[in-house]
């Protein structure tokens, strides 16, 4: 399949539903061939953003551009955007092959050509031989793959996926995530993927846009989002975290609100208010050491997770390599290097 992927530029999108502001000035750039995940809790506006891009909602302000062309008011049928819906939205009265053929029939593609491209698309999602079945005769994962085939068969300029794996069990979800990633790379398709599952976002994306309350909190690469989140919300939403706030009292040192002093590697200027993030898996030995009472200890197979109550009311979540669980109530020491502390 020849790719004709486009880049997408969304600028200053505002969408209100009565009193509710679903989109509050959202701007976003997506390069051709990129997979960007929009990650956010439910009600953050991510689905509304997708609907505006697909053309099912008209924004109150702002614009949507594909390859520089303004498509803000173009009806969905003329946007050439493939979309996979949360509940697949397969046409139950049409066979799998007719479902996949649908966008081609709408484009008046010739019969032989349709047949060839449907077969090709079904092969791409590993559903050869399923063409004559009805959607309800397929499993959830298979239906999802049909929806995917239908969304890519007409060489769309963009692919939009709206929490497509929400209804699948964990194992199948992981398989499908890898499959989507593989397909997307192979076709070089510009893709927006919506999810509230931060793990899914980390697995899939080139970049992640974290949304909250109708605004984008941060757009960055997966590692950037995880290692250097821009604010409390992102730090808290993506991964497990220990977040504290404090004031920089001298270069390389922060005094937290609890009174505890931390050594940091970040060159924040003296007197500034900062947040510090310590990921649980970064604890081990280090220049900053904590002594705390074990309140909770959970064995997770590849690691153990501890909740420590330290001095001055600080609570820490700590992950350590798998081993014997310390007794509840015992006191242990952990440390963290200044370089492992993220300051924002």
């Amino acid at each position, binding site marked *: 399949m020849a790719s004709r992927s486009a880049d997408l530029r969304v600028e200053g999108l505002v969408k209100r539903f009565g009193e509710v502001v679903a989109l509050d000035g959202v701007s976003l750039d997506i390069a051709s061939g990129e997979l960007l995940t929009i990650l956010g809790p439910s009600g953050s506006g991510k689905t509304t953003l997708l609907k505006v891009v697909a053309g099912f909602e008209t924004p109150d302000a702002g614009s949507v551009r594909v390859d520089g062309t303004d498509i803000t008011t173009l009806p969905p049928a003329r946007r050439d955007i493939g979309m996979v819906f949360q*509940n697949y939205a397969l046409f139950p009265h049409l066979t799998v092959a007719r479902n996949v053929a649908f966008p081609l029939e709408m484009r008046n593609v010739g019969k032989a050509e349709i047949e060839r491209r449907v077969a090709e698309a079904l092969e791409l999602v590993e559903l050869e031989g399923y063409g004559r079945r009805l959607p309800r005769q397929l499993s959830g994962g298979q239906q999802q793959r049909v929806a995917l085939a239908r969304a890519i068969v007409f060489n769309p300029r963009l692919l939009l996926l709206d929490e497509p794996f929400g209804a699948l069990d964990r194992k199948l979800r992981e398989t499908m995530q890898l499959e989507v990633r593989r397909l997307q790379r192979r076709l070089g398709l510009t893709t927006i993927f919506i999810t509230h599952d931060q793990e899914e976002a980390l697995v899939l994306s080139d970049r992640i846009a974290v949304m909250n309350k109708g605004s984008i909190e941060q757009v960055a690469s997966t590692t950037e989002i995880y290692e250097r989140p821009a604010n409390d919300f992102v730090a808290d939403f993506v991964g497990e975290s220990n977040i504290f706030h404090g004031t920089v009292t001298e270069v390389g040192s922060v005094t937290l609100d609890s009174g505890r002093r931390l050594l940091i590697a970040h060159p924040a200027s003296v007197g500034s208010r900062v947040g510090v993030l310590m990921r649980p898996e970064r604890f081990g030995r280090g220049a900053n050491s904590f002594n705390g009472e074990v309140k909770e200890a959970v064995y997770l197979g590849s690691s153990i997770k501890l909740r420590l109550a330290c001095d001055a009311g600080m609570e820490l979540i700590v992950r350590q390599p798998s081993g014997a669980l310390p007794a509840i109530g015992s006191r242990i020491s952990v440390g963290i290097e200044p370089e492992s502390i993220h300051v924002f």
Partner: protein
Amino acid sequence: MKPNGNRRLLVALCTLIYVFLMLPLVVVFPISLSSAPYMQFPPPGLSTQWYERYLDDPQWIDATVRSLYVGGATAVLALLLGVPLAFSLARGRYAGRIAVDRLALAPLIVPVIILSVGLYGLFAKLKLIGEWYGLVVAHTVLALPFVVLVMMAGLRDFDRALEQAAEGLGASRLQTLFRVTLPLLRPSLVSAGLLAFISSFDELVVALFLAGPNMTLPKKMFDNILMEIDPTIAAVSVMQIVLVSIVLVLIGRFGRGLQGSAR
């Protein structure tokens, strides 16, 4: 709670009601095959003479054929009006929607006799009395609520994401309607059309007022009972019951009723 005991009680009660409702058939069916020249139960002997009399009488056949095409035309007209109306009621957001909704269902509430008298006055001025298409118009008014109710139940359960999907895949509004929406609503359309047909095929009161000399089957049956009582009427009844039953079976097989609205 004793679910088993309750269930048995329910089954018993339903059986009782069912038998009571079906009881007339137990009488009508044997009489239609009676060898006696008058209504007598149980019949003294078997004969098909009353069916033959029905089939040989052009008046009966004429009335039957008229009822069939009046019913068919009523079904078509009621669908043409009722389906768009149901769409507008189920999906529209406009002032007066509630009023239109009540108005569409009003023929269910207004006594048929009142409606008939009113229509008689109006149709007399329009010279529609005795015309079969006048009867079709009147029957459509009566059939409209069924179509609207069945279609609205179907539309309420309709997953609109399917229409969005179709549009996103390049279908125009019209293509979406004819390729996705209506095919998926086919069971509701079948039910609505057949119900409209039955409501007309069985209808007597309006026909009494508007049909004039052109008899429909129910009117012919009514006149027949007034004039002479012989078992022909039983034979006609049996055939009418069989036809309506076939239609109801068709609805059960290919259509959907109102049960979806309760989900």
